[in-house]
């Protein structure tokens, strides 16, 4: 059995969702009440791969909302309690979605394995980052040529390059062969280490990289205050918005700048669940975060282990393996033509 741990994207949305799901009393409650509320197992689903294998899973809402990010103890407890519920529900492999994995990593919750009476078994959880990284790479390779960008000579910027997903994307693109990798991140030292391990790549500030790159892979969310100098961007420009939350679209609207939602996959058939409507997917019956799909893939393959875990452990072999599984079980990476606005831009003038 696979599990997905998710959450609403805002408190207002969470209340609306609660009302839609029949949790009217929670919908009326204030943020303090929501802080104390326990996680909820909201939905059970069955999913069948083109191979004919059927797996069963559950969606757990951590009852976390981004408004709780500043309440460290609350955020931490929400993640651990949701994991505890997944484990107690007998789920073999659970993906940490949205802010859940960010909180887990940034707050170093590995130290906190003991929640109440339950000893958390890390083998049962995955960040899903290996699949996310693989999907983002597929999105680059598939969509850049459609915009007339020749990857073999193109400059590709990775924003958040030294992170778990970012460094994996860099290694994969290096093997694939791109014109030049432009490395961008907040902290200098991990970038220098990454550059040394790659043996290539140029470290740049964000605005410098944006002025040169035909492809920009964002695996970090943009600060609210950040403005992109649209006039300085090379044209055409492909931007893969692989961060969370996805807020690039509003910042990068311009002619010949193509923003693709990154790390999203589409399944080969409808799933019959409600939960991806909560995640604002364009086709909620088929589309989902690649990290969630990783839990399904591990369950399809009966590989019940923390496949993606810790920082910067994603190997090319692991990406190849999850990529093969992804294709075999009916997933494909979201493409520009799947997005109505972007598809229109692709059409010949």
């Amino acid at each position, binding site marked *: 059995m696979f599990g997905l741990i998710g959450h609403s994207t805002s408190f207002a949305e969470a209340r609306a969702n609660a009302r839609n799901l029949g949790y*009217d009393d929670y919908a*009326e*409650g204030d943020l303090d009440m929501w802080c104390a509320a326990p996680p909820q197992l909201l939905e059970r689903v069955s999913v069948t791969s083109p191979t004919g294998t059927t797996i069963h899973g559950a969606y757990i809402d951590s009852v976390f909302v981004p408004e709780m990010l500043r309440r460290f103890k609350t955020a931490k407890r929400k993640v651990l*309690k949701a994991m505890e519920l997944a484990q107690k529900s007998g789920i073999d492999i659970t993906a940490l979605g949205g802010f859940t994995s960010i909180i887990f990593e940034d707050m170093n919750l590995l130290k906190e394995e003991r929640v109440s009476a339950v000893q958390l078994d890390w083998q049962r959880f995955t960040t899903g980052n290996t699949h996310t990284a693989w999907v983002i790479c597929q999105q680059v390779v598939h969509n850049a040529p459609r915009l007339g960008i020749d990857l073999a000579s193109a400059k590709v910027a990775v924003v958040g390059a030294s992170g778990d997903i970012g460094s994996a994307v860099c290694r994969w693109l290096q093997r694939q062969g791109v014109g030049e990798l432009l490395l961008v991140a907040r902290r200098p030292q991990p970038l220098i280490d990454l550059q040394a391990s790659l043996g290539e790549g140029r470290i740049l500030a964000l605005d410098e990289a944006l002025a040169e790159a035909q492809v920009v892979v964002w695996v970090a969310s943009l600060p609210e205050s950040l403005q992109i100098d649209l006039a300085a961007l090379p044209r055409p420009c492909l931007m893969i918005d692989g961060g969370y939350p996805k807020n690039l679209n509003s910042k990068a609207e311009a002619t010949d700048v193509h923003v693709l939602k990154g790390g999203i996959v589409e399944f080969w058939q409808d799933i019959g669940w409600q939960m991806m409507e909560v995640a604002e997917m364009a086709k909620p019956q088929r589309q989902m975060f690649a990290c969630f799909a990783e839990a399904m893939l591990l369950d399809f393959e009966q590989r019940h282990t923390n496949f993606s875990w810790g920082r910067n452990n994603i190997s090319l072999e692991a990406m190849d393996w999850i990529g093969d599984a992804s294709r075999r079980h009916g997933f494909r990476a979201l493409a520009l033509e799947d997005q109505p606005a972007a598809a229109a831009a692709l059409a010949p003038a």
Partner: protein
Amino acid sequence: MATLASPLAASPEGSALPNFESEAYKDAYSRINAIVIEGEQEAHDNYVAIGTLLPDQAEELTRLARMELKHMKGFTACAANLGVTADMPFAQDFFAPLRNNFQAALAEGKVVTCLLIQAILIEAFAISAYHIYIPVADPFARKITEGVVKDEYTHLNYGQEWLKANLDSIREEFEQANRDNLPLVRTMLDQVAADAAVLHMDKEDLMADFLSSYQEALLEIGFTGREIARFAAAALVG
């Protein structure tokens, strides 16, 4: 997924141990400890009383009751170890509303209400409070409390099992009893929040852990997530 503007850049707070020797700590401890002692004593009395309503279970209930007395002695030793005198009159007042409701239900032979009050609400609250307490307890009390927590799970299970077996016939009484008593738990928590904070026990943590235990027990009994959310709202909303 990493973020460029990590919202969690600041490090989370450490939960340092309180100064067990300070007067402020001992003062707060005198009330919290008294509540625990009184709670265990009442649990003993309540299980014996429930045995009068369920004669075929009286033996098992007497066994549970004896366990509670053992816990009470353990917690009494914790106070002695810190040189604190438990404020028992405070604790007796603290429990009065729940005790009165329990006694009224007992007099009417309402076993569902009695089980809800003792085996679900009080036990879930105790287990949560002990869990939150253990990491910030003095070494002596920590050891005692860890032993108690193991026992308490068997009590919660007892109430759960009986209610689960009788779910079809208990719904109405259970809902009413829950409406009458769950809000008392919140009031009681509010009453001790300041003292608990001195012991480095956070009110929100206590409430959240209580609700987790409560939800888990009710799920086990057979209520749905939506029903439980409705029940829980009685304690949370307003």
